[in-house]
């Protein structure tokens, strides 16, 4: 039963550009990008037990690097992508050494402070980043000469990257390293006594999460052909966190569902309601008070009850 459903879902995903209009294809692309971003954050939050409010940094840094390298310094997309990811990884390694001096709320506060600093830099260093105007007029890459300018072509590109990301993260989570990560999340002292190095495990995970955050950042800037400091803001990190928590942190599917919901809410809400931020805040309150473990666990509990 599960196989048939998965196969049908895969077919649906692959064939979307053939039956849906551009608006929906673009929405699907945005969902894929948000999904990668949410999954990368969930490596930290759900599997690592490290709640970060600064994950937008990695999306933003990769995006800005790519934007600047291609538009201002004449790099080709391939080289720009490599340098951007390398830069993001380096930054994650550096930020990780600072943030991991603490755990729990201290860690949260440090990640928040660090990402706010980056956001401030993006605003202030206007001769580099163009400040509040953002960087516009960017182009999408053309891998193997194939243009990604049409909605359908970009969608398939994003789908390939997202599928790869999902697969890699699924393997990561079920690997021995992933098991040791979950162990450190649950009983760090016990893990240390068993011979695992908790700090190193957390730091490597932090970098890996930053890497995938950077990947989502590249897709983000390719899709929008524009980058603005808002993408580095607390709101951006908070939306991702909301998606992860709303969907359910314990699974791989949860963050994807949650990110989709947040994105849809944002797209439709902003059409009818100007007050997206207020709505986001209220949704935060609602989810935390009413559905603390998230939607996916909640639904699967309902499903088991249904079967009985």
């Amino acid at each position, binding site marked *: 039963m599960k196989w048939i459903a998965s196969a049908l879902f895969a077919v649906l995903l692959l064939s979307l550009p053939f039956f849906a209009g551009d608006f929906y294809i673009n929405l699907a692309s945005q969902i894929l990008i948000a999904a990668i971003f949410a999954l990368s954050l969930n490596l930290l939050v759900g599997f690592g037990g490290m709640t970060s409010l600064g994950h937008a940094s990695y999306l933003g840094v990769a995006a800005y690097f790519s934007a600047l390298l291609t538009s201002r310094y004449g790099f080709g997309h391939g080289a720009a992508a490599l340098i951007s990811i390398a830069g993001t990884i380096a930054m994650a390694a550096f930020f990780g050494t600072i943030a991991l001096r603490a755990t729990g709320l201290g860690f949260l506060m440090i990640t928040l402070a660090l990402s706010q600093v980056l956001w*401030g830099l993006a605003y202030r260093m206007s001769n580099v980043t163009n400040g509040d105007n953002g960087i516009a007029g960017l182009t999408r890459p053309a891998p193997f000469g194939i243009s990604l300018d049409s909605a359908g072509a970009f969608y398939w590109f994003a789908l390939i990257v997202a599928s790869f990301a999902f697969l890699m993260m699924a393997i990561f989570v079920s690997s021995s390293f992933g098991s040791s990560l979950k162990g450190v999340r649950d009983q760090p002292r016990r893990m240390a006594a068993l011979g695992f190095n908790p700090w190193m495990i957390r730091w490597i995970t932090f970098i890996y999460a930053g890497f995938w955050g950077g990947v989502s950042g590249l897709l983000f800037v390719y899709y929008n052909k524009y980058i603005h400091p808002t993408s580095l803001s607390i709101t951006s990190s908070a939306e991702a966190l909301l998606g992860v928590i709303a969907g359910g942190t314990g699974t791989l599917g949860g963050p994807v569902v949650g990110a989709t919901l947040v994105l849809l809410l944002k797209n439709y809400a902003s059409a009818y309601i100007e007050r997206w*931020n207020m709505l986001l805040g209220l949704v935060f309150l609602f989810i935390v008070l009413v559905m603390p473990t998230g939607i996916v666990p909640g639904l699967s509990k309902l499903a088991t009850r249904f079967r009985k």
Partner: protein
Amino acid sequence: MHAPLGARSQMQFWIIQGLNSLSLGGLLFLLSSGFSLIFGLMRLANLTHGAFFMLGTYFAAVAMRTYTGLNIWVTALGAGLVVAAIGGLFERLVLTRLKTNPLGQVLVTLGMSFIISDACLVLWGGDSIPVPTPHNLQAPTRLFGFVFPTYRLVLVGCAVATAIALYLLMDRTRLGAMIRAGVDDRQMARAVGIPVSNLFTIVFCLGAGIAGAGGVLGGPILSAYPGLDADMLPLALIVVILGGIGSLLGAFVGSFIIGFVYTFGTALFPELAYIILFLPMIFVIAFRPQGLFGRVGA
């Protein structure tokens, strides 16, 4: 800013920077003392704190422009009470339900900050609203042949007065003793009959109220604008991380260190202001993660 001529003008410039540092430090103390108190007792990183501060600033901007004769001290008191009340309601209705969910508590404070900041945007629009400096404090003070903006001097005084008041509260009153007991060992405090959940509400109101009053007093310098909360919150975080969680002395010293670093940093290297801002924090985290005055394992 390039001083045009003479050593005296140069001196004047640097003295003004020094005073700006002190007044920014004072402002930061008004902002972060409440944050530190709340974190120390409730182990809650109150991400609404920047929004509480901003509410005070908007309160001042609107009230003092509508009632032009309004005294800033009265406004500060009023704002403090209003923001304290809002904080209290929030604590009672939302935060108490999340006692077993510290992550949830952080998220709802974030959500609340979004709600407040958006509400300010709706009510008072996207433009920056200046807060008038009180009339009797507008004339500059002349000391030793130099000219000082009076209001900034007064602001430093307010911060010091608040620090003294908080110190007396913590050290000399029964309430303060209970709060300190709660900070040291929550379980034990409950066991000896201290009403910890009421204490939580009181401390949250106190913290929020000080932030609101601080917002009023900071108004003439900062002006009320959307995004003020997002500008102030990381400063509070940096001060508390630097000074040490739960330590008022740490918040005091940290505020002035950051005040100086930020003011002189911005004067000398305007584009790198944000990096300069977080350098002290990085040093402290690297070499003394509990902060300058914090306790290990806080």
